[in-house]
């Protein structure tokens, strides 16, 4: 089984996801509902201040990134290429799933990091998603199953199946969980 485009998954996902987010979140402008800044005298100012006051740093960062990858002169290099990469990732997964029933990986590459630890390093934050992103991009069913501890923290594995193979994925995880009941374990707080 071979998934040569795995290294494209994270950049592809973050181009597509931030592009969509920048547009999806445009409705939070203080006009119809939600927070409206009291400082504004024009509609542009009202929208700008309401959004700047209301959104947190990660949301602003994603909106800026998504706005950039869709902007004139850059959309072809980023957004359109990401859609093409997404097609490639899908076809590679479909080919692989012809040969195997499901694909097993860790759910995340490292045990849970501390709250707020990676917020200033978006790249490291985004790379945490490297194993779960391909299924999301390809529109394939996937699930995560608790499977023990690493460095005293609970970890899980991730199963990806062919389209409409949810039943098979659930059956496999049920068999595993019956033999290895990790689901009640908790992290030390």
């Amino acid at each position, binding site marked *: 089984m071979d998934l040569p485009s795995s290294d494209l998954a994270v950049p592809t996902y973050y181009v597509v996801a931030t592009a969509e987010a920048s547009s999806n979140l445009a409705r939070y402008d203080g006009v119809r509902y939600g927070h409206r800044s009291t400082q504004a005298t024009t509609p542009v100012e009202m929208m700008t201040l309401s959004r700047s006051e209301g959104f947190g740093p990660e949301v602003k960062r994603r909106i800026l990134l998504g706005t*950039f990858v869709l902007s004139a002169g850059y959309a072809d290099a*980023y957004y359109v290429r990401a859609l093409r990469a997404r097609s490639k990732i899908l076809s590679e997964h479909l080919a692989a799933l012809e040969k195997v029933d499901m694909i097993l990986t860790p759910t995340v590459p490292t045990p849970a990091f501390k709250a707020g630890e990676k917020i200033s390093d978006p790249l490291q934050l985004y790379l945490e998603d490297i194993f779960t992103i391909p299924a999301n991009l390809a529109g394939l069913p996937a699930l995560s199953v608790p499977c023990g501890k690493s460095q005293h923290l609970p970890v899980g594995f991730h199963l990806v199946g062919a389209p409409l193979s949810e039943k098979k994925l659930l059956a496999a995880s049920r068999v595993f969980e019956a033999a290895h009941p990790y689901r009640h374990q908790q992290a030390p707080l």
Partner: protein
Amino acid sequence: MAKGFDIDHLAKLARLQLSAEEKALYSNQLNQVLTYFETLARADLPPAANVAQVIEESALRADIPGQSLGAEAVTKIAPASRDGQISVPRVVDDES
């Protein structure tokens, strides 16, 4: 792959007001992320994206009227309203 974003232009397009510190921070982070995205530029990709999802006409909605929220509900959640309408600072012709 061309990076060369203009943080002021992006902020204006996205309707965000950024402080000098925020501009420096986001510029730095965007540069870092976009450098990583360069794997996309080098990748050998299919010439066009496949249409992943196609629906048939049976998935369309019949033209049968449903419920309206009504002006009262609209103005109740609006930050400011008058006479059943949402009020905003005065819009001048094509200000966008």
